[in-house]
């Protein structure tokens, strides 16, 4: 029923936008505009990086280490060089003097160890997949063939796979300097007092398994030079950051380096990186004087696109008997992998302030240790730190509810910040500007049919149905809209969090918006057009949004961390306001009125109380002609703005998930999923809904399907899409979504960001549901991903070790007996 309701709502919104035409009082902001981006995407007229062909282009292929940890004792490239079509073959030694070190922009502590990270390994490899040599050939086939003719001798070194073992005395070292990259601490309030004599203490350990982001477009790079200047096309989220970093790494002067992110097929954080392949492509084109292209294969990408998550969490909650939380203490081990990449060490810090969630408490204590292992480095993946934090607190609050025999929603109600308490400064020191947890939760409960599902659950438990029903709750918030530059500075991040926009009024009255954000699926061309259309009173169709090319958009901080609208969209609005100010001044001059008497509406500047006016298009032409401008007025209406937010934004919401767990096979099936999100004011509800849907799907992926699995030697086993399972349409339910709206007070659009919300919210909702289904069996946790085997084993282990008579349906009819220690990957 609820699904239909939701589909109906959307259909209504679409119909509305179909029929509306454009009455003069209609706002573009808030309309379900269909996307401008779609035209080229649905017709195949896209420019993916791999589509780019340049005259004389050469193709690069990388030979990658088959071992996680080894010393390179010999590389012989002579046979490969002799292969037909081969132009060059290089090993790391050939680049040693010029390749520099891949950057880490977030040294989170003063004593952090940041090991040298050569783009191509020179003496030692530290993860399977690290590049050790490359071939440049006249086509991709010849390049791939010649790789097999390169001889490399490795002297195996001990792999370091497990974080706990990595920190043990005498463990083999990933780097000479040791396996502990840093320890970062943060404490607020008196944590000892909170735990002293606490009536209830919940202590749990959670595993945030390693994930492979799996954007649908594999990475690709095209580098070219005319001898003076360099152009790099890359499937990246961060053309601007990349340009700065590549200039610093390669020594190519920044002003002679142009970086272009053409159409980019998804990122989810994985393309927020400065990669070895980008650096090496530049070095190769510099050496060879020819354009070079490298395109990743999926199996290569699974090995070498940075991974996400991979944390071990210990969370402790001290609470009163009535469920009120006194304090939370968190200890993290975060797997850095073999090197610190662009923001690797900062990822857990983005979660550090979120373990208090939406709850009030007196004390908080957080410690995180970053650990080196011989695996692909980790870095940003959708949510980056915040999904991990939200998972831990939302799982632990459910455990608290179970411990106290309270409904999980009720425990949350007793702890959350109430709507009249905003703005509220949390125990972590963040000031949540606005929100209404009650409203979102009540709406979600109603859409979900919470009480009916609880009744069905009780009924299934009573009749010992082998298929049990679980209900999972997740009341999340997150900090996004990255970020106030001064806060980033205080956290030792290497750059700011501002965003830039330029608005150009063309002589014919059309508008070009240049944004520093770099969309790769988010729909900025549409949403920025909506903002601009409203601000300037021009038709939506008359706006073009330019992005993703440092020669066109010279200034920006790019797209990640749900920042684009909250920072970049606000910059667009602010630039539009400046254009309007200039237009107002020109209008006043032309109408021989005082600027204070000029009113702006519907794209026209009119003298107050008269019909006399000039449209913004007329003013654009007048500024272009420049025949009659006020004294000292530069002949242009164009304006730019660089916006730096004062605060993060804090979307929140309540996600509810009903899961059927087949206790005989261990299979979990999501039966219904309701998400009510509050992302503040909404520019385009279609885009917001799409972001929520996709986010939920990725969060479900972590809960049920996805894990990068290594063997004890550190080899990745999930190198293909047959092994690393991402869900298809057939594996996911229809989502029921709705919104509540409490505008952000931290920006003039009232927006909060939506890119990561779904992913942050959904993982704990799903796992809470599975655990909820299995509580009668004595189950308190299922490690992610909750694979059928793992669920089955967890039930069996709970049965054999749990207290006798734990109620529920433990004697239900499952065939077979409790497992022994035979085989099985865990």
């Amino acid at each position: 029923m609820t699904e239909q309701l939701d589909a109906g709502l959307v259909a209504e919104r679409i119909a509305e936008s179909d029929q509306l035409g454009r009455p003069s009082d209609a706002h573009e902001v808030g309309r379900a505009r269909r996307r401008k981006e779609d035209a080229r995407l649905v017709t195949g007229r896209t420019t993916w990086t791999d589509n780019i062909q340049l005259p004389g282009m050469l193709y690069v292929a990388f030979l990658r280490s088959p071992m996680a940890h080894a010393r390179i004792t010999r590389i012989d490239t002579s046979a490969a060089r002799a292969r037909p079509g081969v132009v060059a073959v290089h090993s790391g030694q050939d680049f040693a003097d010029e390749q520099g070190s891949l950057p880490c922009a977030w040294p989170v502590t003063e004593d952090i160890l940041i090991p040298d990270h050569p783009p191509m390994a020179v003496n030692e490899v530290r993860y399977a997949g690290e590049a050790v040599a490359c071939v440049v050939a006249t086509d991709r086939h010849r390049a791939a063939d010649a790789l097999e003719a390169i001889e490399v001798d490795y002297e195996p070194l001990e792999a370091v796979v497990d974080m706990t073992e990595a920190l043990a005395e005498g463990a083999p070292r990933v780097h000479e300097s040791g396996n502990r990259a840093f320890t970062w601490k943060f404490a607020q309030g008196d944590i000892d007092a909170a735990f002293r004599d606490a009536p209830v203490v919940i202590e749990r350990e959670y595993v945030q398994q390693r994930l492979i982001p799996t954007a649908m477009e594999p990475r690709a790079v095209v580098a070219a030079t005319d001898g003076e200047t360099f152009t790099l096309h890359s499937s990246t989220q961060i053309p601007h950051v990349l340009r700065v970093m590549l200039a610093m790494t390669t020594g190519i002067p920044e002003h002679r380096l142009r970086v272009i992110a053409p159409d980019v097929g998804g990122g989810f954080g994985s393309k927020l990186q400065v990669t070895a392949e980008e650096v090496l492509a530049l070095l190769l084109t510099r050496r060879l004087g020819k354009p070079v292209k490298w395109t990743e294969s999926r199996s290569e990408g699974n090995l070498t696109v940075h991974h996400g998550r991979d944390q071990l969490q210990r969370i402790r909650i001290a609470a009163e008997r009535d469920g009120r939380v006194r304090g939370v203490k968190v200890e993290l081990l975060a797997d850095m992998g073999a090197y610190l990449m662009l923001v690797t060490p900062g990822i857990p810090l983005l979660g550090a302030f979120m373990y208090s969630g939406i709850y009030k408490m007196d004390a908080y204590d957080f410690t995180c240790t970053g650990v080196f292992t011989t695996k692909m480095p980790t870095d940003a993946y959708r949510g980056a730190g915040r999904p991990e934090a939200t998972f831990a607190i939302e799982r632990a609050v459910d455990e608290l509810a179970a411990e106290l025999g309270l409904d999980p929603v009720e425990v949350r109600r007793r702890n959350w910040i109430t709507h009249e308490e905003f703005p509220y400064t949390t125990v972590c020191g963040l000031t949540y500007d606005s929100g209404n947890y009650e409203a979102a939760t009540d709406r979600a409960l109603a859409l979900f049919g919470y009480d009916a599902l609880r009744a069905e659950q009780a009924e299934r438990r009573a009749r010992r149905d082998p298929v049990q029903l679980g209900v999972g709750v997740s009341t999340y918030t997150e900090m996004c809209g990255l970020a106030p530059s001064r806060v980033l500075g205080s956290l030792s991040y290497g750059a700011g969090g501002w965003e830039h926009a330029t608005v150009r009024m063309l002589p014919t009255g059309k508008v070009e918006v240049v944004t520093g954000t770099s969309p790769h699926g988010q729909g900025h061309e549409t949403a920025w057009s909506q903002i601009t259309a409203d601000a300037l009173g021009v038709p939506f169709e008359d706006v073009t949004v330019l992005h993703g090319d440092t020669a066109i958009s010279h200034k920006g901080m790019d797209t990640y961390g749900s920042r684009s609208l909250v920072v970049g969209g606000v910059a667009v609005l602010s630039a539009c306001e400046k254009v309007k100010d200039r237009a107002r001044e020109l209008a006043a001059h032309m109408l021989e009125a005082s600027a204070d008497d000029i009113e702006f509406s519907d794209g026209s500047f009119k003298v107050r109380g008269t019909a006399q006016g000039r449209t913004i298009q007329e003013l654009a032409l007048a500024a272009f002609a420049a025949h009659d401008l006020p004294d000292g007025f530069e002949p242009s209406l164009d304006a730019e703005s660089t916006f730096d937010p004062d605060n993060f934004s804090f979307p929140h919401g309540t996600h509810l998930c009903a899961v059927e767990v087949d206790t005989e096979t261990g299979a979990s099936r999501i039966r219904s999923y309701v998400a009510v999100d509050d992302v503040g004011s909404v520019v385009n509800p279609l885009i917001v809904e799409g972001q929520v849907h996709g986010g939920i799907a990725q969060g479900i992926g972590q809960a049920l399907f996805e894990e990068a699995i290594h063997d004890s030697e550190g080899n990745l086993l999930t190198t293909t899409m047959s092994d690393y399972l991402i869900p298809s349409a057939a594996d996911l339910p229809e989502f029921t979504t709705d919104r509540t709206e409490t505008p952000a007070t931290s920006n003039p659009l009232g927006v909060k960001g939506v890119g990561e919300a779904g992913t942050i919210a959904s993982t704990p909702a799903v796992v809470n549901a599975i655990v909820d289904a299995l509580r009668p069996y004595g189950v308190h946790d299922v490690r992610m991903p909750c694979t059928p085997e793992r669920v089955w084993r967890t039930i069996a282990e709970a049965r054999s070790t749990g207290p006798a008579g734990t109620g529920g349906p433990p004697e239900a009819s499952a065939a077979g007996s409790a497992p022994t220690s035979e085989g099985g990957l865990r």
Partner: protein
Amino acid sequence: MISAPFDYIRPASLEEACRALGDAEEAGDDVKVLAGGQSLLPLLRLRLAYPSALVDIGRLPEPRGVEDRGDHVFVGALTTHDEVMRSSVVRELIPLVALATATVADPAVRHRGTFGGSLAHADPAGDLPAVALALDCVFVVRSVDGEREIPASEFFVDYLEPALEPGEILVGVRVPKLGPGWGFHYEKFHRTAQSWATVGVAAAVRLGEGGGGTVEEARIALTNMGPTPVRAHAVEAALRGADFAPSGSNGAPDRIREACDRADEGSVPPTDLHGGPEYRRHLARVLTYRAVRAAGG
């Protein structure tokens, strides 16, 4: 990724194909037969196989198609999964084949992948080998020396190893019709819609008069419970004469379940990312019960 180079031979007839294959084998070349290529091409692209040549039989006019031949249905090796699923002869006369084929991969793969290719690939995680084994199919293979027949029980020698001699090509499969009174089910358990069966169970069950009576005969085979598909002989024997009435009625023990609890006997389940042997044994028992109930119901 990009496959290593290979030669390409496109014979004009099956005879020519056999000859090409025979010649190549004689010369010591590693030649592979290409039909739909849906299993082979990914292996080549990942450079997990380096054949010196492919003999492409994919566009030969025969053997393809489905034919009712009285006591059995002949399914030509080149018949695509999609054609098999659509065939009314298959759906009516050998429905277990239709049920299992519908679970193979995805629609685009089923358009290209062939019935014979899947079987000759002899992947124990494939869905069709267990069906062929359960139904006692007969494999018809041809070489320059002529045709011979291989019973399903002998066709699957080892992991990815069919009982094809050098120079032999699978021409088609005789699928026995089991006649009236039989019910069928293919129970596939997998983690995502696309993934291979963690375990699958092909079941054919014949009940005595009146439907709800006793099991007269059952044929059960398991997918991905060893290096080859596994026939669950112990279950078949134990099911014979078992009361099919719903469990718990009359307080009698559920003999169907007791029988199915023997499903893993004789299996050598593999370990992979989706499950270890112990879990697979358990799944085999659970799924066999479900398959038998569904087939008999």
